[in-house]
């Protein structure tokens, strides 16, 4: 995973709540068997609307998506995270994220930041007033900085550490292989098996 320490970029204000994963990346894109090439599928239906935020010239190149509450609800598709990253987003800010989406984002180095809704709205207003305004999402200090706004955010220590270092979860777990073997040895014999080995 790519490490995330701090990122500064422009804001794409997505003034919608309950942005579900079918909106982020519709199902027909999920037929791909790679992790890249999803950028054109990102918000595909909305991108046909001329006034959609990603179609507005002043927001081109924005790398921090600021969205309404309950971002990423719905399916477990990690493709939603890949699509945001393939398009060029490094961080997403919202007042609430769906659990699976959040887990997926942090495993891929897309930082999801929870700020109060009032702060989210302040960032929307900022981007609308000055599309060139820069926001900094600093994972080291756990702080979001923008003109007229300074807000701390929380992230569990473990996720933060893995993101800062760009660590591979599987490698870490395999370091505990002995604990896994011990657990396997004491598992009940009546537990189901899908095949005989």
């Amino acid at each position: 995973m790519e490490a995330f320490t701090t990122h500064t970029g422009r804001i794409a204000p997505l003034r919608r709540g309950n942005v579900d994963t079918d909106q982020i990346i519709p199902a027909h894109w999920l037929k791909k068997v790679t992790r890249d090439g999803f950028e054109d599928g990102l918000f595909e239906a909305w991108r046909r609307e001329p006034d959609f935020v990603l179609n507005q010239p002043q927001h081109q190149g924005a790398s921090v998506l600021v969205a309404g509450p309950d971002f990423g609800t719905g399916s477990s598709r990690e493709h939603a995270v890949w699509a945001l990253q393939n398009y060029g987003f490094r961080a997403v800010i919202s007042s609430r994220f769906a659990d699976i989406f959040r887990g997926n984002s942090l495993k891929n180095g897309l930082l999801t930041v929870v700020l109060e809704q009032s702060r989210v709205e302040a960032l929307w207003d900022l981007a609308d007033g000055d599309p060139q305004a820069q926001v900094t999402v600093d994972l080291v200090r756990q702080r979001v900085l923008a003109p007229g706004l300074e807000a701390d955010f929380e992230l569990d220590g473990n996720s933060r550490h893995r993101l800062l270092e760009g660590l591979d979860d599987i490698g870490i777990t395999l370091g505990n292989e002995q604990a896994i073997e011990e657990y396997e040895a004491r598992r009940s014999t009546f537990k189901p098996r899908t095949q005989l080995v």
Partner: protein
Amino acid sequence: MGRTLAEKVWGDHVVRRAEGEPDLLFIDLHLLHEVTSPQAFDGLRKAGRRVRRTDLTLATEDHNTPTLDIDKPIADPVSRVQLETLRKNCADFGVRLHSLGDDDQGVVHVVGPQLGLTQPGTTVVCGDSHTSTHGAFGALAFGIGTSQVEHVLATQTLPLAPFRTMAVTVNGELPADVTAKDLILSIIAKIGTGGGQGYVIEYRGEAIEKLSMEARMTICNMSIEAGARAGMIAPDATTYAYLEGREHAPRGADWDAAVAYWDTLRTDEDAAFDHEVVIQADTLAPFVTWGTNPGQGAPLSARIPNPAEFADESARLAAEKALEYMGLTAGQPLREVAVDTVFVGSCTNGRIEDLRSAAELLAGRHVAEGLRMLVVPGSVRVALQAVAEGLDTVFTEAGAEWRHAGCSMCLGMNPDQLSPGERAASTSNRNFEGRQGKGGRTHLVSPQVAAATAVLGRLASPADLPPARSTSPSSRTTAGV
């Protein structure tokens, strides 16, 4: 202090616990399908890793599979590549796969339980959010992303952040015309699509205890639609009766040992939940959605709500957008909403009891003129059972299309899709914009409401139907009265 059911199952699966780190949990059953696994197998290959426990892993093809002409090559080349990729991955890594054409193929969440692989007190994961379905057995079951799929393949464990517990207690008895689907839609409307966030929900109370296993699966299936990590129901005699004798259920002494353990899987009297919701079952009625998220629902007897009356601003905006997308007007009675498509199927309502209840209403009746009704069994086994009971004939004689098993129009990855502007009553679980096809409009309903709607061509409940023609088998083929 006592522990909740979820805490017990969690506790029994901790492989490693360390200060400041998430618990490492052992996974008893890992289910795979073609959509969320290719990149995970790719990751294994790149790192030179193997599948640690092929004996705890099972794959099936469901999301992309066609429901017509399944013996012909799959027309969509991209879907075909994805299925072929799964076949190659399973062959290369030694994973058991149920492919299209196989008797055990079907929607992954229908296949696991019917094989008896989903058992009380197990941890079940799948790269699919509706893995919560398996919680109906008292399993801790949740959807994971592709990175986690790779993690489980390689290690048979997952590091997991702690959860909070919520009890949804449903007291009293459900009225005769109210199904599990109406109940879960009512629960989601009450707690909201984000209301379960971070929680494992335990459904309990008299009304839940009375539900069949299949109805319990419908409830747990949609936990994710309330934002919950998982949904669970404590195992009981109903659970054991469903499991006993199934292909992968324990036998003999193992069965006795298993039941002794399963009997301990109840929330202790003195356990505390982080949050509690209480619902009175007898106040409920057939329930449908009017919006574009599963929380935007109302009793069928209601009118489309007026967004201006929503106190919360984001709820008001969401309702305005939803009505615009759905092509609906505030104040319109839900019963007057005309639909052109009815879909019966999915891991929410594609099991045999669902098909039976829809068929019962369609027997001796006909779907409305010009309306398309698709009946897609959740698995091949469900289909075979339905055929054995003659349900397929009931459906086709009523003018519905009887299709092959799979996810189908639940998410429209195969050719079964809505066209722009088309309106469906669907027994699936998501009414998101475009979920069932670009520009398609979805009302989530129970199988009973789906069948009644198909007959009348507008959202309807069984009580709205005129009497059926005689439906005894001998008269079924003759002209009705």
